[in-house]
């Protein structure tokens, strides 16, 4: 095992001082940029140019620091590359997990979801925090004691075979790849909005930002950059809303003062309905103004609780989160570290509802004041141009656009009504600095925070994927094969990967007149040359790491090329990751620790059945809804308020010629609107979770019990004392 002294040195001993210095430096940068903004704008420079300079300042300074950490943490030790040398103290691992966990969606989208859904949106707040209780009490300490490099490692050892390992890799890829693509899309959007950068260029810049943090130093580098990224993202999230709370209520603690905002919102809701500015909620149709704090207006009670369950169990199954707990120095620290993780995540999630309440109060006040269209505030137009705010059904690009759009509606009174305004979830956090009338430097800070959230999550996910491919698939499954099989598999893999990369990258216009395939060929040739040179001069351990790094690069390139095609569906699919992880991994993982009798056959059957059922439900309800109704007994989902089917006449809808279309778009009349027992597809693990558990139990009981050696192994996982079960063999090899 890598000892702390060897792997950490002076750095780990001085963590507190280093990160305190870093935080101080970050504040100095913010103040310096604020001073620049004040001086430049008061001397009459073009505000747009100044704003853009501030945006670039934030983005490139922060990415520069992450890159520096990445380079300083470079390593050629496999223990450091895979598990950061197991020296990360609980407190810092908590911060790193917080950054790893909170994605672009949490940072940018969560508050907006709460704005739009009110109480029902709290399913996400609960679901994405409570899962850590399961991580701590059921899983993390035992995985730490086991001492694996990856989550699939545990499956292989506990269930004695490479098939469980392979299944775990499949589930891992299914839930992590769409997730990482969504992070890269997030980076692209942030750079596009704040820096006016071309989306595709921004995606590849983001890719560079991710790679410098992970490729040279693996988990070690990712850990220390994630700590730095957590600090940036939490400051960026808290500052605007703290100032806003101070402005409005005189107390800079938004988590307390938004109670008053909630009470004010309730008053305004009643007033808007009384004045005819908003339609009252119609209990028969479910349409109209939904009171902010009223439960079960967007999700039925069943779906609300099902969503919480799926998100929580999914949290406890996502490999990129679990692998963070492999990096602590001891089992005890792993447990404490889950508590710190949750505390650091809690700081953001218990603030998000405050953002939502303040934004809603602002908007409802505007409407209740009977604001004329010509008097709408500037922030609506700023974000209307980006398509995030619509008035009367059209993007609110300017006063003229808004007036024209509303004039086209029959009997429009010329003032803003509740039903006229459309706000996308992303707009809330992004627009808050402007709503509060803060200088642009705060908006730049928010951009840096969103970027930190997206990059840190992408780093963790990429590493999880690349390690599963290099460590589990290549090193543990392909290398032991004979020479011919090895060559064959490697060749097929390279051909498939290259073909896929070329296909993805060819989408889009030539870059500066150069055909895209030429650019890609040039890049690949360069990379092959560099790695070929390194490979020739390497020993066995460093060759393994080299292959890990190449795969990391390939996966990252794949994710970026996918992101560059702007896949709308992928972002929506992220919510699926939780159900997929919950269905595929959770039952086998938990029973593996808590039930000695669970065996190979049970694990294989349970994983295949649970995961397939979940995937089936997701894919059928979303892409083949007609087939679901025709062949699998699915019915229309119900309106949560009226309790009536969303599709009033399913037979008639099924008679439509497009009902039996496959791979339908989100706009299809049946897409995601059918299912079993009124369960939304994002909660599909509600079915597959119990079935996964049952299958493992029944099949295990029907087949032979595991060997005594396995019982002993489980006993040693359960006992914190003693060596890890799986020694870090490679670290030992390295030391000799």
């Amino acid at each position: 095992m890598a000892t702390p002294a060897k792997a950490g040195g002076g750095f780990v001993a001085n963590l507190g001082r280093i990160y305190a210095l870093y935080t101080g430096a970050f504040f100095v940068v913010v103040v310096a940029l604020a001073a620049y903004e004040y001086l430049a704008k008061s001397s009459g420079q073009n505000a747009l140019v100044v704003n853009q300079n501030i945006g670039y300042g934030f983005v490139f300074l922060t990415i520069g620091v992450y890159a520096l950490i990445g380079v300083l943490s470079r390593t050629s030790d496999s223990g450091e590359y895979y598990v950061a040398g197991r020296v990360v103290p609980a407190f810092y691992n908590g911060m790193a997990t917080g950054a790893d966990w909170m994605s672009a969606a949490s940072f940018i989208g969560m508050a907006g979801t709460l704005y739009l859904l009110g109480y029902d949106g709290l399913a996400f707040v609960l679901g994405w925090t409570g899962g850590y209780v399961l991580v701590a009490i059921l899983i993390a300490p035992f995985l730490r004691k086991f001492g694996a490099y990856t989550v699939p490692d545990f499956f292989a050892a506990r269930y004695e075979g490479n098939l469980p390992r392979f299944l775990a890799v499949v589930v891992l890829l299914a839930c992590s790849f769409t997730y990482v693509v969504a992070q890269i899309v997030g980076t692209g959007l942030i750079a596009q909005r704040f820096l006016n950068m071309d989306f595709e260029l921004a995606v590849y810049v983001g890719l560079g930002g991710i790679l410098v943090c992970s490729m040279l130093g693996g988990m070690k580098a990712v850990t220390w950059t994630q700590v730095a990224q957590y600090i940036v993202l939490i400051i960026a999230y808290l500052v605007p809303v703290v100032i806003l709370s101070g402005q409005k209520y005189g107390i800079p603690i938004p988590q307390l003062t938004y109670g008053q905002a909630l009470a004010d919102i309730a008053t305004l809701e009643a007033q808007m309905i009384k004045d005819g500015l908003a339609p009252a909620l119609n209990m028969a149709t479910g349409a109209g103004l939904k009171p902010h704090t009223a439960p079960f207006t967007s999700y039925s009670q069943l779906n609300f609780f099902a969503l919480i369950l799926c998100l929580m169990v999914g949290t406890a199954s996502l490999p990129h989160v679990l692998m963070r707990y492999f990096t602590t120095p001891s089992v005890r620290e792993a447990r404490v570290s889950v508590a710190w993780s949750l505390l650091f995540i809690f700081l953001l999630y218990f603030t998000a509802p405050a953002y939502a309440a303040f934004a809603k109060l602002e908007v409802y006040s505007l409407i209740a004041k009977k604001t004329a269209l010509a008097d709408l505030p500037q922030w609506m137009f700023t974000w209307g141009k980006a398509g995030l705010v619509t008035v009367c059904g059209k993007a609110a690009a300017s006063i003229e656009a808004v007036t024209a759009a509303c004039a086209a509606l029959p009997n429009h009174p010329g003032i803003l009504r509740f039903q006229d305004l459309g706000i996308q979830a992303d707009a809330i956090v992004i627009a808050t600095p402007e709503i509060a009338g803060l200088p642009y430097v705060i908006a730049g800070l928010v951009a840096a925070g969103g970027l930190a959230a997206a990059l840190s999550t992408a780093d963790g996910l990429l590493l999880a994927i690349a390690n599963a491919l290099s460590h589990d698939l290549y090193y543990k499954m392909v290398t032991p094969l004979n020479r011919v099989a090895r060559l064959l598999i490697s060749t097929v893999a390279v051909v498939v990967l290259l073909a896929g990369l070329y296909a993805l990258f060819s989408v889009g216009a030539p870059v500066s007149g150069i055909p895209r395939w030429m650019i890609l060929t040039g890049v690949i040739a360069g990379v092959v040359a560099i790695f070929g040179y390194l490979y020739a001069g390497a020993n066995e351990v460093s060759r393994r790491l080299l292959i890990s790094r190449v795969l990391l690069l390939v996966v990252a390139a794949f994710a970026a090329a996918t992101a560059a095609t702007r896949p709308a569906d992928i972002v929506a699919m992220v919510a699926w990751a939780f159900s997929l992880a919950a269905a595929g991994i959770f039952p086998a993982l938990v029973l593996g620790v808590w039930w000695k009798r669970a065996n190979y056959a049970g694990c294989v059957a349970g994983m295949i059945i649970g995961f397939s059922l979940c995937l089936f439900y997701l894919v059928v309800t979303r892409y083949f809804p007609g087939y679901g109704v025709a062949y699998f007994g699915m019915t229309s989902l119900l309106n949560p308020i009226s309790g009536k089917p969303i599709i009033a006449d399913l037979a008639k809808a099924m008679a439509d010629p497009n009902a039996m279309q496959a791979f339908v778009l989100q706009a299809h009349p049946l897409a995601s609107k059918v299912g079993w027992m009124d369960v939304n597809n994002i909660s599909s693990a509600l079915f597959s979770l119990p079935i996964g558990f049952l299958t493992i139990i029944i099949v295990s009981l029907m087949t032979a019990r595991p060997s005594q050696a396995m019982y002993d192994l489980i006993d040693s996982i359960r006992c914190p004392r003693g060596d890890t079960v799986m020694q870090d063999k490679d670290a030992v090899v390295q030391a000799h």
Partner: protein
Amino acid sequence: MQGPNVVRHWARTSTLMWIMFVLWLIFSFGIHFFVKELNAIKFGGFPLGFYMAAQGSLIIFVVMLFTFAARQDGIDRDEGMAED
């Protein structure tokens, strides 16, 4: 402090797990079934049902996890199963 006792260590560990699991069930699901009733109670502007989902349960989860870590460590030490 006695010698390592594997059976009793695991029994106490399991009990602690089940206690935490039941608390988790209550604060993830149980209490939110009563959101409508709880929303009738207001403090500082917060309807209590909303507050529990937005902050209350979260605070309890955080406290639970630090308590769990300390308790489990106590069990490990008592039964001679702690590291170092």
